[in-house]
């Protein structure tokens, strides 16, 4: 169609989340038809990211500095650590701007059914951070799934003896959500987690 370089570009784009072969072709075409405004800046950004971005040795975030900007920020409350499954969840929470503490990325969740154990995740560094002292609260911001809940219970069992407060995110009706379209599980969780008005 356009030579092996174009085919390779389309094939690589098609492997990205949210893109299939068809949308990858459209993206490649857009890049190739506007090389100065799209393709070259993108190529330069990718090259720079490859050289600069690394995993934070403290929390597991991705950043061009190590420790990352969040871990190095002196204005953040180091006594509160929010535990998340992946970097995507960390970015989502930080975008909301409501958590002014630090984070810890597990790199997944325990899955007793799929055989993913504690040794497969970034759990030991979290326990080491808490054991090192200075931590008052650990917020378990994990998904409302069987695996997420299993991971939260596993962590809570090991964090409580260290003398920190262990909390987790609330579950229930989303903002803008109508009760009649919620699934039974969410409704049950919302009812269980009710509070005085």
């Amino acid at each position, binding site marked *: 169609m356009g030579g092996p370089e174009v085919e390779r570009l389309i094939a690589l784009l098609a492997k990205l989340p949210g893109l299939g072969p068809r949308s990858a072709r459209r993206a490649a075409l857009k890049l190739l038809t506007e090389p100065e405004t799209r393709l070259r800046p993108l190529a330069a950004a990718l090259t720079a990211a490859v050289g600069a971005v690394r995993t934070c040795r403290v929390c597991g975030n991705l950043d061009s500095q190590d420790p990352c900007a969040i871990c190095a920020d002196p204005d953040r409350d180091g006594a509160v650590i929010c535990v998340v499954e992946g970097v995507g969840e960390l970015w989502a929470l930080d975008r909301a701007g409501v958590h002014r503490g630090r984070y810890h990325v597990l790199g997944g969740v325990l899955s007793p*059914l799929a*055989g993913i154990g504690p040794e497969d995740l970034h759990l030991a560094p979290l326990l080491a951070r808490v054991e090192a002292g200075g931590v008052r609260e650990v917020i378990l911001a994990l998904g*409302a*799934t*069987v695996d997420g809940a*299993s991971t939260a*219970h596993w962590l*809570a069992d090991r964090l409580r003896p260290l003398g920190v407060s262990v909390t987790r995110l609330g579950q229930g009706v989303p903002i803008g959500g109508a009760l009649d379209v919620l699934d*039974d599980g969410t409704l*049950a969780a919302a009812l269980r987690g009710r509070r005085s008005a």
Partner: protein
Amino acid sequence: MDWDAPAIVLDARPFGEGDAIATVMTEAHGAHRGLARGGSARGHAAVWQPGNLVQVRWVARLADQLGSFSAELVHPAAALAMDEPLVLAMLTAACAVAAGALPEREAHPRVFQGLVALIAHLAEGAALLPDLVRWEAAVLTDLGYGLALDACAVTGATTGLAFVSPRTGRAVTAAGAATWKARLLPLPAFMAPAFMAENAPPPLAACRDGLALTGHFLARDAFGLHNKPLPPARQMLYDRVAALALSESPPDAG
């Protein structure tokens, strides 16, 4: 080819960006896999949580194809279990045992009905552990590895059974066990055929012994013969119950 039946979700693993390969169990079709479209996407992931009771429809062009599932949630057992560590461990252990031990597409109605009953009474928590152990024994029996717990293998006595041979799966009394006690598995009273349910649930130590008993035979016969270890979820349940049993009756000082 298609069928429609009440089912229990045993497992759902992400496949591609938003789909999942789900394993469900039905009364007539046993453990059955299929592609759940959107099963790991935000809209449908809640339905495909292990332990949920669903009304599932399976469709395939040929009987031996993987086929695809569509499902409607009937009872959100997973969501109801998530707050309680022990209940969640029981649910995931039961699902993992059923998903790993039972052959695919082979009906085991007694196992299915037992699992439905367990899920329906999950709120009872630790009081349900004896039923879970008995259900695991029923799984072994259905697979052809049933335990012989009705009479002592040595004396023939039908009362006072206290141990089980880890080799033969036959019960023995304390007198029959004699000097071999250390090599035998303790048999909790609630496992005996003549056991009548009492008001007070058995102690957690007895439940731990029951889990160790069925766990030994599940590991050796149901999983070991297929070169598979006991599922991590089942091991995590045992560890949790053992820890609770320890805190229930701390060892004597000195």
